[in-house]
Every structure is written in structure tokens, then in C-alpha cells.
């Protein structure tokens, strides 16, 4: 089981999913209208490292994070 957490302004509780590759995630998230509107502008991290590709095998306990647009300072 992997966790998907939504950071910052995305008001959505953490999901727990049974997927084995990051490339399974788009279909699942796109099906949720409330989440779908954020996807175009979100970066993705796997275990707190930003990823540039969704081809990544997942193992039990992995954490995926969605990072919406930022504005520090």
C-alpha cells in the first residue's frame, strides 16, 4: 500500500492506494474531479524527492506527494 498526500491548499485527505507503479496514478486522480483541476499545475514527489517521470515501481509504504503552485517569501 502506498500513500498519496495533498500539500498546501489542496483540501483533500491522504489517500491509501494499492498500486505498484507511479504510472497508475494519473488515471486514478483524474477520475476525482476535485483533484483533477490541480493536476496540470502540480509537481510530484516520491518519498520526498521530486520526480520527472512517472515510470517508477512502488513498494509498500512509499509516499507520494502532490505539490501545487508555490509562493514563498
Amino acid at each position, binding site marked *: 500500500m502506498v500513500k498519496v498526500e495533498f*500539500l*498546501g*491548499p489542496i483540501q483533500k485527505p491522504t489517500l491509501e492506494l494499492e498500486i505498484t507503479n507511479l*504510472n497508475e*496514478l*494519473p*488515471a486514478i*486522480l*483524474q477520475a476525482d474531479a476535485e483533484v483533477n483541476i490541480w*493536476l*496540470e*499545475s*502540480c*509537481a*510530484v*514527489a516520491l518519498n*520526498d*524527492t*521530486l*520526480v*520527472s*517521470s*512517472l515510470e517508477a515501481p512502488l513498494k509498500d509504504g512509499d509516499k507520494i*506527494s*502532490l*505539490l*501545487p*503552485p*508555490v*509562493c*514563498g*517569501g
Partner: protein
Amino acid sequence: MLNIYTGALKVPHILKEWYKEENSSNYGAYISFVGTVRSEDGIDGLSFDLYEPILYSWFHDWEEKAIKLGAKIKMAHSLGDVMLHESSYIAAVFSPKRRVALELIDEFVEDFKANAPIWKYDLKDNKRIYAKDRSTAISGSGLLAKG
């Protein structure tokens, strides 16, 4: 060094501590950037969320980059509410000579604005409103919208 503080930053104190910390390090230049909450659009203040694990690793990469240039970077940021005319952000660069410090502070602040995992909200009429229009998608965003 990256320090996160709840609420507004004590700017004079932090600038002083950083100056003292590097006093014997033989740096010739110390540049600091302080970000202060401006009164605009009728806001009462700003509020910040941040995601520490990626913020710290982002900052660590900058520390490494600075070291290669013989420089040192420090940063402080607020978590939670910061009211008008209070400060929420300080970045500083120490370097032996001025050019490295002048260039690095600019690059660092711009990358901070574009990529540090911090989210800003306007405090207005007792609401906390995501500052969507002023926010920037982190480079590489949009992967999940495809496929």
C-alpha cells in the same frame, strides 16, 4: 542553515546573529534579503504552509552550490500568520568577494520563489485565501495531468 519560525521573524535579531556567526569566517561580503508583508488589496496579513522535507532538501542543494563558490547561504522563513509590515522571509549570502554574493542572492531568491515548497494565503475578512494568482507551478509540474 535554514530556520523556520512560527509567526513573524525577528529581523534585527536574526541579521545580528548571522553577522556574529560569520564574524571570524573571513567573508568580505554579507548580503541579506528581507521580505516584508505589504499592505495591498485590503489584506490583514499573509499565512504560510510549508512542506519541510522537500524544503530542507531544496535548501541543502543550495548550500552545496554555495560551498562550491566559497560562499555560505542562510535562510529563515515564517510558518503560519504574519501580519502587515511584519517580515516572513530572510535569505543571506556570505562570500569572500562581492560578485559571488551579489549574483548568488539574486539566483537564490528567484529559485526560492519558483521552487521552494511554501504556500501563501491572504488573510482577509477572517478568511485564509490561497494566493493562487501569485503562485508558480514548480518546474516539472503537470506530470499527472497526462497519460
